[in-house]
């Protein structure tokens, strides 16, 4: 090796070292206050067991612990779960029906007393078996749980009615905060208006409708964390305010997601002061037909409406202005169970040749005698992305001669229209927290099996195909079964049209480190691993 090569190698080696040290592990700095925006009006109460709005999680999760959760340094994982209050993830025993958790012994409540398995038991009983007068919003997630026990202060045992792969993901639900048994016994409603937990931050104050503040919990059991001295969450339902706040450095981050326009504006104006993280979102709008109303009971009409939509051209265009991006089938695009592009293109609505698809759509409409179809599209009064998607679809359907009028209503009437079956076609949503395709695709089953399915149809074949997929244990076979179920749902029966999946774009001021994005805005919000680099 001569001098030149030697120098070259040394240079490369040096470059590699520099790259490695700047790319990865910086040591977290302690200190500072994180001001973040919460993209909603204040949540109704502080009780995570009772609420379902993400505002609750964003505002209150930092003050509490949970039993298990998605890994904070890899929240995008769809298969991995780690312990928060337990010592290690248990293996199920008794044929998969019993899970025994050992609880950490070094956890203290913010009032100084010790957290035991009895507290975990009381909290989980409240979630799964709520007493009279107490609302728990997630009872149906845990229908497989038969009994929960705490034989001693360090052990909690879950006994299931039947083995279920859906149990552990359900247990990692971000709303299942652990409350103190003593307080619950005295007043089960106490946690609705008060906050006292064991999480990385201690609650300080709440200005009604405006902001919530907390400080570091010095006794936090995950040693070293949290890095921040204090946090402040400010409620702001208006997007322009949030964008301006980030631009003017009045807040460092907003954890839900912003549309591409906001990201572009921030990047353009703040340059290197803004870092953008993005990810596919486990949320999507789906178009549901009311099959109890003519002519939507005719599969030809539904197929025609699906065929008319140019997903491949629409998605990239919409992704510039709305929070959508990836064309997908019924499975979340990042999951191993999702369809490939080639597999999608076999189904109605995803054909590569849109002219051919629209010609076929017109032919089907004619055949079904619904040539000059006119209907009302019920939509929710939310801009991103509901109204954008609605307006896009109306434009697409116009191209096969279908006249659609959009009926936009506030959230309450929107729900009511779906549950009461008083719509023609509705822009529905399917949003889940932990990615769990086997459970998430239950949405397309008939209502008698899945209550939130609003199409008003009965389809025994669909149930049969779904169950086959659900109980399949071999991953390859499960994937094949999922394809069959998907083709039946979207192509053969055209029960729903899946519009492009939402896309989560989170611009963050560059001094905020440690937070990683995940496919759900409900996950990874306890802020314990965030630190400020300044």
């Amino acid at each position, binding site marked *: 090796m001569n001098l030149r090569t030697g120098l070259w190698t040394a240079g490369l080696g040096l470059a590699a070292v520099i790259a490695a040290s700047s790319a990865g592990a910086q040591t977290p700095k302690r200190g500072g206050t994180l001001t973040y925006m919460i993209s909603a*009006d*204040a949540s*109704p*109460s502080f009780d995570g067991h009772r*609420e*379902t*709005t*993400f505002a609750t999680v964003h505002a209150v999760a930092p003050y509490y612990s949970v039993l298990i959760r998605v890994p904070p340094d890899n929240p995008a994982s769809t298969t991995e779960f780690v312990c928060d209050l337990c010592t290690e993830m248990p293996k199920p025993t008794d044929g998969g029906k019993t899970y025994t958790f050992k609880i950490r012994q070094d956890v203290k409540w913010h009032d100084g007393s010790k957290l035991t398995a009895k507290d975990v038991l009381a909290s989980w009983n409240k979630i799964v078996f709520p007493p009279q*007068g107490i*609302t*728990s*919003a*997630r*009872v*149906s*997630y845990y229908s497989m749980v038969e009994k929960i026990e705490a034989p001693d202060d360090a052990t909690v045992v879950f006994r299931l009615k039947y083995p279920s792969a859906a149990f552990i993901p359900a247990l990692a639900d971000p709303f299942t905060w652990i409350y103190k048994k003593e307080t619950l016994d005295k007043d089960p409603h106490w946690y*609705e*208006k008060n906050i006292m937990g064991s999480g990385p931050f201690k609650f300080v104050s709440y*200005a*009604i*409708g*405006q*902001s919530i503040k907390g400080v570091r919990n010095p006794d936090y059991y995950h040693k070293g964390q949290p890095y921040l001295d204090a946090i*402040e969450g*400010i*409620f*702001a*339902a*208006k997007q*322009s*305010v949030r964008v*301006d*706040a980030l*631009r*003017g450095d*009045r*807040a460092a981050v907003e954890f839900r997601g912003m549309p591409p326009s906001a990201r572009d504006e921030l990047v353009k*104006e703040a340059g290197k002061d803004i870092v953008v993280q993005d990810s596919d979102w486990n*949320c999507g709008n789906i178009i549901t037909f009311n099959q109890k109303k003519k002519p939507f009971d005719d599969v030809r009409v539904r197929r025609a409406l699906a065929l008319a939509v140019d997903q491949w051209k629409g998605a990239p265009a919409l992704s510039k202005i709305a929070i959508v991006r990836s064309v997908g089938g019924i499975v979340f695009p990042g999951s191993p169970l999702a369809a490939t592009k080639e597999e999608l293109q076999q189904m109605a609505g995803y054909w590569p040749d849109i002219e051919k698809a629209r010609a076929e759509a017109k032919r089907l409409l004619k055949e079904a005698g619904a040539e000059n179809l006119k209907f009302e599209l019920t939509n929710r009064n939310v801009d991103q992305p509901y109204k954008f998607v609605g307006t896009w679809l109306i434009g697409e359907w116009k191209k096969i001669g279908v006249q659609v009028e959009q009926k936009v209503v*506030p*959230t*309450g*009437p*929107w*729900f*009511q*229209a779906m*549950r*009461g079956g*008083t719509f023609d076609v509705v822009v529905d*949503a*399917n*949003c*889940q*927290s932990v990615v769990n395709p086997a459970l998430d695709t239950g949405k397309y089953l008939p209502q008698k099996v899945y*209550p*939130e399915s609003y199409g008003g149809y009965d389809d025994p074949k669909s149930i049969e195909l779904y169950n086959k997929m659900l109980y399949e244990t071999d991953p390859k076979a499960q994937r094949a079964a999922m394809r069959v179920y998907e083709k039946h749902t979207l192509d053969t029966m055209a029960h729903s049209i899946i519009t492009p999946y939402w896309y989560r774009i989170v611009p963050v001021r560059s001094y905020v480190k440690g937070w990683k994005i995940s496919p759900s805005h*409900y996950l990874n919000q306890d802020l314990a691993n965030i630190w400020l680099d300044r």
Partner: protein
Amino acid sequence: MYRYIVKRLLLAVPTLVGAAALVFVLMRLIPGDVCVIRLGSGGAHVDPASVEACRQQLGLNNPMIVQFLDFLWSYISLDFGTSMWSGHPVTEEIAARLPVSLQIALMATVIAVLIAIPLGTISALKENTWLDHVVRMVAIAGIATPSFWLGIMSLVLVLDITYLATGKAWMPPIDYVPFWQDPIRNLSIVMLPAITVGYRYSAVTMRMTRSAMLEVLREDYIRTARSKGLLEQIVVNRHALKNALLPVVTLIGIEFAFLIGGLVVTEQVFNLNGIGRLFVQAVQNQDNVLTQALVMLVVVIFVVTNLVVDLLYAWLDPRIRFS
């Protein structure tokens, strides 16, 4: 006079009951309810049992007449209820947000009075000159401009101007602090919204001042005084202004009551945690109790303001007092 006041107060009762009935009926006409929104807004599972339990707890399943009587009775006993959305007492929810709205309303009124009355007077004194035309155009533009559009444009202007001037975009702070805690920060938050709301308010006042002054100036005694010389002119003009102010003051009072409407959209634009925004939230969440309370509050303010204005009118104008 007392009889008049008592009579007006008695007449206010059917107004209040009518408003209560109207808001009650309207809120219940809207499909859906607060429980469904609260438990299902994530788009994920809505557990029917939870929704039902929630409804039961909030009394939404009771027959309409029972709900209405509950509502009326609670107000008579001065218990304004708890918000269906948050569970906090209604008085607490409103009290937390009143300071912001009040401050904006008062500042808008001050702006209106300080700017509009002098400008309107000058415009009347110099009728049909270019100054008059300019002031009139500015006033009419104030009435014609949608206040929220003005708010959006002004925010954008502030951001752009500060960015161009200093390289860093500045926007008003977003968390409210009361005036006594930090006057400068407080003013920087409230200034833009107050101007946005105040522009329209002062435009209306300006027009009224101008037309009232013009009417008074046409009176014979004014013309006579003018012909007598400069000193008399000044004295008389001041006298004219006093007379002209009567309808202006009553107008300011009436428009103040209508400020709530303007606040609704302005608080949305500037993300202020005020009564207007609470209104929108309450209505969107279908929080019947809170919405009812807010409507009653607005109606009471309206009725009281009207009564005060009419009393003022009657007191200041002897022709009416003795009729």
